[in-house]
């Protein structure tokens, strides 16, 4: 049998590599913004905000490439599913970049020398590391079409969800002065942003399963939590 459409396949592989490469940019932004958080480094946070243009640019690049591919090559079957999934992946990538920006914008609001609750900060940094790990795992699962690895993201995401609940409890119990309480509330928003990044990683995992099986299913159904244990 003769291999055909080689150019098309190369182009599709290139788009996938660009989209997944975008996830590396997200991991980079996330690591930087967590470092900025740890050291109250407002300059570094500003850099994260500026660098989000790279992630947005990558989104536009892949999106445009996919539209062009759809128009010229009319992909079908696995190719079509991959193209549809890539559109989703880049959207999640772009959202995760925005969440990093949201976190970065909190830091100047908190001030250069905010009253830090060590326990909250420790948990946030742990959440950030876990989220970066999940984004990398989502990338690896997609690239290797590994459904089991993709499904494992749900278990990984439980770690983030648990830390998020713990931070919420600590903020609620915070008995410090007004500045400390204000900082704590801002950190709850940071936790919320990291939690969303974890969810986006799970969503990319769902796209992996879709490419492989042809069936889309939510790994976790937030609106029907009872069904998740089935």
């Amino acid at each position, binding site marked *: *049998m*003769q*291999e*055909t*459409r080689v150019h*098309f*396949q190369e182009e599709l592989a290139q788009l996938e590599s660009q989209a997944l490469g975008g996830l590396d940019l997200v991991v980079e932004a996330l690591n930087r913004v967590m470092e900025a958080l740890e050291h109250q480094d407002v300059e570094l946070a500003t850099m994260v905000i500026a660098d989000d243009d790279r992630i947005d640019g990558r989104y536009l690049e892949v999106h445009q490439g996919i539209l062009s591919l759809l128009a010229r090559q*009319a*992909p*079908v*079957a*696995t*190719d*079509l*599913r991959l193209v549809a999934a890539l559109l989703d992946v880049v959207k999640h990538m772009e959202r995760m970049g925005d969440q990093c920006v949201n976190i970065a914008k909190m830091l100047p609001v908190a001030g250069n020398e905010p009253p830090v609750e060590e326990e909250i900060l420790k948990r946030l940094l742990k959440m950030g590391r876990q989220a970066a790990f999940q984004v990398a795992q989502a990338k690896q699962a997609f690239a290797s079409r590994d459904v089991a690895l993709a499904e494992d993201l749900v278990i990984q995401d439980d770690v983030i969800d648990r830390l998020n609940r713990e931070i919420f409890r600590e903020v609620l119990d915070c008995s410090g002065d007004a500045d400390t309480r204000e900082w704590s509330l801002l950190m709850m928003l940071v936790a919320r942003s990291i939690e969303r990044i974890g969810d986006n990683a799970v969503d990319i995992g769902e796209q992996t399963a879709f490419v492989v099986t*042809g*069936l889309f299913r939510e790994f976790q159904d937030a609106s029907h939590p009872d069904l998740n244990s089935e």
Partner: protein
Amino acid sequence: MTYERAKDAEQEAGTVPTPFPRSQQPRTESSATRTSAYGAARPSGTLARNVSVRGLNAWYGDNHAVKNLNFEIEPNKATALIGPSGSGKSTVIRCINRMHEEIPGARADGEVLLDEVNVYDPKIDVVAIRRLVGMVFQKPNPFPTMSIFDNVAAGLRLTGTKGVGLRERVEKSLRAAGLWEEVKDRLKEPGISLSGGQQQRLCIARTIAIEPEVILMDEPASALDPLSTLRIEELVDELKARYTIVIVTHNMQQAARVADSTAFLLDGELIEHAPTEKMFTNPDDERTERYVTGKFG
């Protein structure tokens, strides 16, 4: 040509040939609901029959072109046959109206059932089968010496339709083929004076004029420009409300656009037959996947 054959048969038998015993005539035009050949009432206006292919084999001399094919073609649906050249697509549809055996050295066995009538039953009148199963070919083939009107009327005249009735049927057929508005003022001009796309719609009008129950289309748009192709595709969508449509196409996007279900043939074997959406998003068979994605040619 079908009509010439029908004419010969008519002269021989002195009547319009039918594959069915007179008591089981497939249509009774006067009643509100028509009665099928088997007594079951069908809604008025639809002529479509289920086509059931069972254990079909076809040969060209020693070449076994179609191998033990089994599949169902649903009424009022468009079914596309796709596959590489030489996969047996055209042979399959030519077996449905027994055109295959017209080729010297060609033969077929197995069953092709129109509802429950086996077109390979030795007692069946082949010409009448071809009247029930109309065919549209790759290259438009209007009768070259006939006017637009006569091209459509030719088959009807054989059935004894005349005068006002004839004119009404011609107009109805041309309208159904989406050609009436373009030709109503030039019905006396030769059929071959029309453009390629118009000629193909004229051939479709000619086919539906005699009210077949199944329409076979063998690459009906492959010789047409893109706009004419889209018109034919829209027409297929309209015609399936009334007929069973089987379309052979090399153009996979065309199959994706027009067909409700798609069957993939390879080397004379049916590899997969499924709803078109499934065939083009998530086919079961690896060979279908490789063919529709263009990974082998």
